[in-house]
């Protein structure tokens, strides 16, 4: 059953750059099979929370448990078989093929002297198919558009075959078609997801629960219906919004009302 046991548990997470506190006392959890979103304006600390979780940054204080194990003490390889990450896209200095990059997702499953097996090839091919990249597998990664690159990164993490996925605004370069397709795909995989999300409407459509950050602190948390209120949006994002239940999706729909159109 969804959420019946805890996959990720974070208590009292604090982080600072030098003496500049970025995160204070973040407390969150993700249950098995849940799709959990982290919301907040730019600079609120969404990416920093995720980077502390996937160990690109080292927290000053806090307890991080993945499946009951201390994430900070877990060895790299084991962490990489449990936790897949779609970070923000980075330039790749050398010319790799799409399929080569996706195949790197198999790395944590490989020992020092293991070659690539037939099974690896099947997994890579399936990941390419799922992300609509099958016909681009021999293309050069650096010549792809921003959206295609994001799909390659998703395909790589699918090939990694982890049950837990951390995503940092995975759809910010995608056309609306691929935004929906990507989230639909992730939903269909029935894995556990924690994702920073920029777009409140996407969060309302896909997330089971939400955490809202403001200035490095947890502002509120709950289901989309609890959290996505005009008051929260005004307080955290500083804009007026109209929130309604959409008759077709059955989910919340947020319409922003700019100052110029208010009467």
């Amino acid at each position, binding site marked *: 059953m969804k959420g019946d046991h805890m996959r990720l548990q974070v208590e009292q997470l604090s982080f600072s750059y030098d003496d500049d506190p970025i995160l204070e006392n973040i407390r969150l959890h993700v249950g098995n099979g849940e799709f959990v979103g982290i919301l907040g304006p730019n600079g609120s600390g969404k990416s920093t929370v995720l*980077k502390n979780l*996937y*160990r*690109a940054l080292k927290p000053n204080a806090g307890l991080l448990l993945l499946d009951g194990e201390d994430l900070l003490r877990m060895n*790299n*390889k*084991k*962490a*990489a*078989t449990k*936790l*897949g*990450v779609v*970070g923000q896209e*980075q330039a*790749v*200095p*050398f*010319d*790799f*093929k799409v399929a*080569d*990059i996706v195949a*790197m*997702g198999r*790395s*944590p499953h*490989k020992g*020092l*002297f293991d070659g690539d097996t037939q099974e690896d090839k099947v997994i890579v091919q399936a990941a390419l198919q799922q992300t609509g990249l099958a016909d681009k597998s*021999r293309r050069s990664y*650096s010549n792809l558009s921003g959206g295609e690159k994001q799909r390659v990164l998703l395909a790589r993490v699918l090939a*990694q075959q982890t049950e837990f996925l951390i995503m940092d605004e995975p759809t910010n370069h995608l056309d609306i078609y691929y935004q929906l397709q990507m989230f639909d795909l992730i939903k269909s995989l029935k894995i556990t997801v924690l994702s920073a999300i920029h777009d409140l409407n996407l969060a309302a459509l896909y997330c089971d629960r939400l955490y809202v950050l403001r200035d490095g602190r947890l502002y509120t948390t709950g289901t989309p219906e609890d959290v996505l209120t005009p008051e929260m949006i005004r307080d955290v994002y500083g804009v007026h919004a109209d929130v309604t239940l959409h008759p077709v999706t059955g989910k919340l729909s947020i319409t922003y009302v700019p100052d110029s159109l208010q009467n």
Partner: protein
Amino acid sequence: MKKSGFAARVRSIFHPDEPNMTVIVPALLLLALASIILAVGLGPVSVHAVTVAKIVASKLSLLASSVDRDWTQLEENIVWTLRMPRVLLGMIVGASLAVTGVAMQALVRNALADPFLLGVSSGAAATATLGMLFGVFAFLGTYVLSISAFLGAAATIIIVYAISRVKGRIHITQLLLSGVVIAMIMDSITNIITLSAPNALGLHSAAFWMSGSLAGAKWAYLTLPLIVMVCCITALMISYRSLNALTLGDETAGTLGYNVNRMQKLLILVASLLAGVTIAVSGAIGFIGLMVPHLTRLLVGSDHKRVLIVSALLGGILVVWADVVARMVIAPQELPIGLLTSLVGGPFFIWLLKRRSRE
């Protein structure tokens, strides 16, 4: 018709998508072997390639009895005592420098990294001369020169890397400029030492350190560079997956299960060992580490599983032939080989720079 079929086959072998490594590696090995035999024969006094092959065969105990001794003692001396160690040293030095380039490029995630350009060669030369002059590392015995050059190479890589790393990322302008400045400082140190104490340094003049030379190679010079080369290339080949992952960035390599910190230390160690030991025997031969990995990637793609071995072979072949040109063009005088590689490598670097800024 037949010709286009041949061209298609060549293209299919060197196809960057699916290069046929079972053809490429043996072909390069053969080419390397042929280059050694031919290059040994070439010089101010030429020896026919067949004679060279016979002399070499007579030295191998297995084949010795089946060879007719129809050459002069002079030819044997030229082939076996003078040129063979020189050509083999060229092979080792070329392979080592090319692989140093691959390692440094993976470390800084940029194809413009090269031991010569980033001052590593100069650093190695400076500490090597210091070591010779003051006997600073005399307690290390016969390998003084190599070990002091290694220490200089390591110090330079660490300094340049630390200067150019801004907020966890390598800043490429900072990298190249700090490399140039460190090279200037180190070259001045080398020059001051070699000018002020010319007699203490014997054969190792300032020109040797600045522009490289394989002249004066002896069989005894080969052992250490060979061992270091084999160990370092093996260490990198074993970790080819993590080298690939590192090119995606530190964070990504971490999320794929690699210990990025340990990998970076390994790369610094390997690059310093290769550069230091090589430069101690040959001086600074520039741009091999820049040109060879780039040509290799054009031939077989960027996967380090292929790049390492092909770079090593191509680098060796290139240096052997560059050395042939160096001793032939103004014979009986010799050109320092480093001048030749810079003459070709400099424009190559500019071309690479222009191409990258267009992207």
